[in-house]
């Protein structure tokens, strides 16, 4: 009965559609949460007109952007200009193909995993693919033929490139402890060692998250789109659906960074302190919940905690100056992450090849 072609193409296709749908909805609703949370931080109410308590606001926004006038500036480099949004959106979505949301379960006798696939070079794949997004930003800024866009694109390229190095170095410290590039194996290593990597790798975790904020061009590192100096930075000329894709990519990237931080440092789908609180998690109230939902639920809780911190940053910190930004990346994060890397390596050496 099990036709190999069906299993080979249909199952992944269904998963892809589900993952894409969830990610796009998540990105859309993230913008809503951001507006709401920022509003409450500033003692306002925020969007509350469309739907009950404003819950349909992101859908209204998407519809509005869909029918908005789509401007193609007369001086722009037409093909590259249109390529920009595609180049920035596709990598942000492709990354989700390897992020594990939970453990596998049985469905009609077949093993089903709540993630698309487990690639053995997972984290390298993610770093490689997500770097492609830089091209979308710099090409979009360059092709617009607008001074603000060009400046924003250049700044963003310099910033993304500078922060990629300490980010990579802090990921390497996790690999030292996990001895694998596969994201599923990294989570399993955290289960086996009984400790999330955030505790031994606290400095790496901090550097990773700050670099992640810089990589997504969010406050306080939103230099590429600093509205007080560059109007809207690299997407000044973009309107309508093309702008919507830049917007979507930014929020999808936030979800990506939060998910990777969850997987690498906070034990992915594992409940907190599995070895200490095992008795609590085995209580009837919790065992009643199906394993898939239980695991994915913890994953989402951790991910949303990160996303909340993102928004919190935006509500709290003023923007960096560009020379300060560069100095922080090159003169603080790179030396600190290099020293931290060797310190963690030394620690792993002392504990030895226990596995």
């Amino acid at each position: 009965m099990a036709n190999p072609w069906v299993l080979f193409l249909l199952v992944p296709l269904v998963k892809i559609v589900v993952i894409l749908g969830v990610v796009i909805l998540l990105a859309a609703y993230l913008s809503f949460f951001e507006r709401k949370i920022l509003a409450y931080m500033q003692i306002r109410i925020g969007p509350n007109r469309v739907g009950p308590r404003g819950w349909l606001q992101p859908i209204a926004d998407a519809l509005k952007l869909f029918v908005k006038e789509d401007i193609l500036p007369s001086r722009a480099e037409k093909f590259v200009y249109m390529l920009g949004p595609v180049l920035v959106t596709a990598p942000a979505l492709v990354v989700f193909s390897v992020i594990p949301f939970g453990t596998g379960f049985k469905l009609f006798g077949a093993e089903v995993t709540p993630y698309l696939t487990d690639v053995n070079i997972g984290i390298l794949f993610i770093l490689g693919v997500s770097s492609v997004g830089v091209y979308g930003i710099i090409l979009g800024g360059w092709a617009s033929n607008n001074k603000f866009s060009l400046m924003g694109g250049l700044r963003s390229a310099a910033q993304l490139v500078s922060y990629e190095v300490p980010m990579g170095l802090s990921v390497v410290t996790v690999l030292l402890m996990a001895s694998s590039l596969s994201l599923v194996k990294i989570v399993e290593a955290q289960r086996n060692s009984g400790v999330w990597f955030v505790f031994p790798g606290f400095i790496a975790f901090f550097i990773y998250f700050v670099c992640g904020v810089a990589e997504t061009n969010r406050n306080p590192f939103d230099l590429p789109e600093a509205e007080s100096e560059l109007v809207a930075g690299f997407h000044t000329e973009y309107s309508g659906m093309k702008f919507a894709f830049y917007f979507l990519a930014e929020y999808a990237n936030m979800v990506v960074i939060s998910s990777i931080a969850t997987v690498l440092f906070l034990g992915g789908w594992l409940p907190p302190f599995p070895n200490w609180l095992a008795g609590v998690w085995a209580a009837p109230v919790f065992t009643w919940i199906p394993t898939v939902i239980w695991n994915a639920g913890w994953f989402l809780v951790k991910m949303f905690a990160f996303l909340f911190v993102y928004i919190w940053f935006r509500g709290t910190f003023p923007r960096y100056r560009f020379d300060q930004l560069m100095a922080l990346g090159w003169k603080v994060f790179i030396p600190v992450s290099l020293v931290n890397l060797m310190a963690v390596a030394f620690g792993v050496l002392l504990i030895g090849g226990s596995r």
Partner: protein
Amino acid sequence: MNQYIPVLLFAVIAIAFPIVTLAIAKLVSAGRYDPVKLEPYECGNPVTSEARDHRFSVRFYLIAVLFVVFDVETVFLFPWAVMFRKLALFGFVEMLVFLGILVVGYVYAWRRGALQWV
């Protein structure tokens, strides 16, 4: 290799999704164009020059060159980190030497002011 086929499938769909959506949006979106509207935005002033004719700071190139050095080094660290438990002390000393050489270059770049933005 089988695990990569879904990734490829995902990549095709992820690339097709924005293209198709943009094509549909082109059909349904409003559009009333005139030459002035299609000019690059410059706070309402008439556009006097092409943006790409202007020069920008050489620092951007410098950052790009430095990035190549450091990113290649990071890529080199990946396989080392995965095999670290097997390499043990040998790997540790090896990496200390490698990073030592890198740090010499880093200190040189710092002293020459390559990391100084202004």
